[in-house]
C-alpha cells in the first residue's frame, strides 16, 4: 500500500512538472525578441559552444586536465611519513621507468632545494605542504599547482626546453612568502642520468 502511494505521488509530481515545463516553454517562446538580437544570441551561443567543445574534447580525448587527484596526507606528521621522509625526497625512477619527483613545501622553501630533471620526458611531481597553504609555479611551463595542507598535489608534465628555471611559491603563505623559491635544472634528455638512490624504492625506512 505504502509503495503504491509513493509511486502515485511520483507520477503526480512528474505530470505536474511536465505541465509546468510545457507552460514555461510556451511563455518563453512568446517573449518578444528582436530578430537582430536573436541573431546575436545565436552567435554568442556558437562562440561559447565552440570554446566549451574545445575544452571538453581536450579533456576527454587528449587528457588535458588540471591536477585533481583527491589524495589525503597528514601534513602535521610528515616526518613520520615514509613516502615524504627526508631521504626519499627528490627525483626517483620507479620500477616501470617513470620519473617521480617528491617535494615538500614549507615556510619558506621547497625541499630539496635543487633538482635536476630531463627535458622532453613526462615527470610526475608529488607535492605536499608541511605547514600552511602554498602554491608552486615554474614560470614559462605548465608546472603549476596549489599545495594545500592535508592533500597530495600530483601533477604530470613535460619540460620541452632545457635550462635553469626558478620554482616560485605563488600563494601567500606568510610574511616571508617572497623568499620562498628554489631552482630546477632541466637537462637535455640525452645528458641526464637517474640519481643513484632511485633503485632503492621507498628510500630509507625510518619506522
Amino acid at each position: 500500500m505504502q509503495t503504491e502511494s509513493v509511486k502515485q505521488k511520483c507520477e503526480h509530481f512528474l505530470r505536474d512538472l511536465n505541465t509546468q515545463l510545457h507552460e514555461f516553454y510556451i511563455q518563453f517562446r512568446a517573449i518578444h525578441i528582436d530578430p537582430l538580437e536573436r541573431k546575436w544570441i545565436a552567435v554568442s551561443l556558437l562562440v561559447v559552444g565552440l570554446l566549451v567543445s574545445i575544452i571538453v574534447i581536450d579533456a576527454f580525448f587528449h587528457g588535458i586536465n588540471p591536477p585533481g587527484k583527491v589524495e589525503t596526507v597528514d601534513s602535521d606528521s610528515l616526518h613520520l611519513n615514509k613516502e615524504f621522509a627526508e631521504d626519499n625526497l627528490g627525483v626517483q625512477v620507479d620500477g616501470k621507468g617513470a620519473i617521480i619527483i617528491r617535494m615538500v613545501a614549507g615556510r619558506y622553501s621547497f625541499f630539496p632545494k635543487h633538482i635536476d630533471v630531463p627535458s622532453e620526458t613526462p615527470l610526475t611531481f608529488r607535492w605536499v605542504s608541511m605547514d600552511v597553504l602554498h602554491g608552486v609555479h615554474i614560470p614559462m611551463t605548465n608546472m603549476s599547482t596549489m599545495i594545500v595542507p592535508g592533500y597530495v598535489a600530483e601533477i604530470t608534465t613535460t619540460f620541452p626546453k632545457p635550462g635553469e628555471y626558478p620554482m616560485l611559491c605563488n600563494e601567500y603563505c606568510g610574511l616571508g612568502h617572497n623568499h620562498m623559491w628554489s631552482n630546477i635544472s632541466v637537462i637535455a634528455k640525452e645528458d641526464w642520468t637517474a640519481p643513484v638512490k632511485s633503485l632503492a624504492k621507498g628510500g630509507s625506512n625510518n619506522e
Partner: protein
Amino acid sequence: MNDAATRKLALSHLWVAFIAFILACFMGVYQVLERSGFISALDSPSVYFASVSTHGVLMAFVLTIFFIMGFGYTIAASSLKQPVWNMPLAWGGFWLALTGVIMAAIPLLAGKASVLYTFYPPIVAPAAFYIGATLLVVGSWVWCVIMLVMFSQWKQANPGQAVPLAMFATAMNVLLWLWTSAGVALEVLFQLIPLSLGWIDTVDAGLSRTLFAWTLHPIVYFWLIPAYTAFYVFVPKQAGSFVFSDEMARLAFIVLAVFSLPIGFHHLYMDPEQAKGWKLLHGIGTFMVALPTLVTGFAVIASLEIAGRLRGGKGLFGWIGSLPWTNSMVLAVILSLLMLIFGGFGGIVNASYAMNAMIHNTAWVPGHFHLIFAGTTVIMYFAIAYYLWPILVKKPLFSSSMALVQLWTWFIGMSILTTPWHILGLLGQPRRVSSVVYNNLLTLSWQPYELMMIVGGLVLLGSACLFIYNLAKTQLNPSSEAIDQHIEYAEPIHAAESVPEWLNDLKLWNKVIAVLMFISFGYPILQFFIMDTYGSSPWGF
C-alpha cells in the same frame, strides 16, 4: 525621492562606501611603490601585507556592500514609489555593518590580521577580524530582508503588473547575495571563528577552500549587478534612447544570478582537494555565465546606437561620434564597455580549465580583476554617484567637467596599471609578493613593468581624489539653491505591460539555484565527511 529620511539613509551608506574606497586607493599606491623595490626605505613585508589585506577588505567588502545597500534603498524607494520599509531596521543594519567594519579594521590596521581578504586557513587571524566580517555580512542580510519585503509588498499592491526593471534587478541581486554569502558564512562560523578562539584544534583547508570558492565567483556578480542595472535603466535615458528589451534584460539578470552560483571551482582548478570532473563541470558553467554579459553588451550598444542615430549620427560608425560624450553616465558606460571587452578576453583565459595553469596565481590575476572590477564596475559606481548626488543632496553637481576628467583619468590610469600587470603575469611574476628577491635573470625583465604600474597607480589616486572632492563640494556647497530632481528611468521600446510570473518573481529561480547548487556542490562538500581527511593546525603568518 522627496523623502528626506530615505535620502539620508542612502547618503550615509554611499559615504561609508566611498570613504573606504579612498582610503584603499592610498594603500594601493603605497603597494605598487613598495613591491617595485625602487625605494628601499619602503621595504617592509609586514606593512605591505597588512596594507594588501586592508585594501582587499575595504574594496571588495566595504565599498561594494555599502554601495549596493545604498543603491538598493534608492532604487526601491524611487522605482516602487514607496518609502523604505521599516526605517529603524534599515539603520540597525547600517550600524551593525559599520560596527563589523570597525571591529575588523582594528586588527587589520594593527598588522594582526594580514591573512588577506581571502582568509587562507590554516593561517589564522584574531577572532575580532572574523567576527567583524560576519557582522558586516549580517548587516547586509538586514538590507536583503527589507528589499524582499518591499518587493513583495509592491507585488501584492499591484497584482498582475510587471515589477519595475530596476527593482527586479535589485531583487535578483538580493537572491544572488543570500546564496553567495552562505558559503563564506559556513566557513567563518564553523571553521575560522572556532579555530581562532581555540574551540577546535585543526581545520580542513580543503573544505575551507571549497566553501570559499562557493562565494568567490558569484560575489563578483553581486558587485557587477548595480553596474548592469545602470546599463539598462539609467544609460538609455541619459543618452536619449530606450531600453532595447525589457524582457531580455530580466532574463539576463536571471541567468546571471542562476549561473554565477554553481561555478566557483574555476578558482580551484589548480587545487588537489577536488577532482577534475567537478572542475570541468564548473568550467562549462563558467562559460554559460558569459551569455548574459554578451546579451547585455548587445542591448547597451543597441540603446546607444538608437540614441546616436536619433541625434543625427549617420553611417556604420557615425552614430558613435554623435553620442553625448559629455554626459558622465554615457561616457562612463563607453569606457566601462571598453574595459569589459579586454577584461572579458582575460577572463576567458582564466576560465579555460587547463590553459589557466599558465596564469594561475600570477600577476595576471590581480591585473584581470582590477580591470574588470575596479575598471568596468567601479567606473559605473562613479557614474551612478554623479547621477544620484544632485538628487540626494538637492544641489547641482559641483563640477560636471571635473567629473568627465575624473572618468577619463580613471580609465587611462586603469589601462596603464593593468596592462603591465597582465604582462608580468605572463612573464611568471607571482601575485602577492612584497618584493622581488628571486636571484634569476627572468626577474630583470619585470622592472620596466613595475615602473609603469607606479605611474598607473598615481593617475588612479589623483582620479579618486577628484571624485571624492567633487562629491564633497557638491554636498557642502552653502550658496546653491535647493533643486528638486527625480530619478528618471529609461522606458523600453516595447512596454511590457504583463510578463510571465517567472520573469517577475524569485521563487522559481530560488528553486532552480537550490537544485544546481546541490548538483555542483553537494558531493564535493560531502566528500570531506566521508573520506579520511587530516586537519591542519593553526599557524600565524
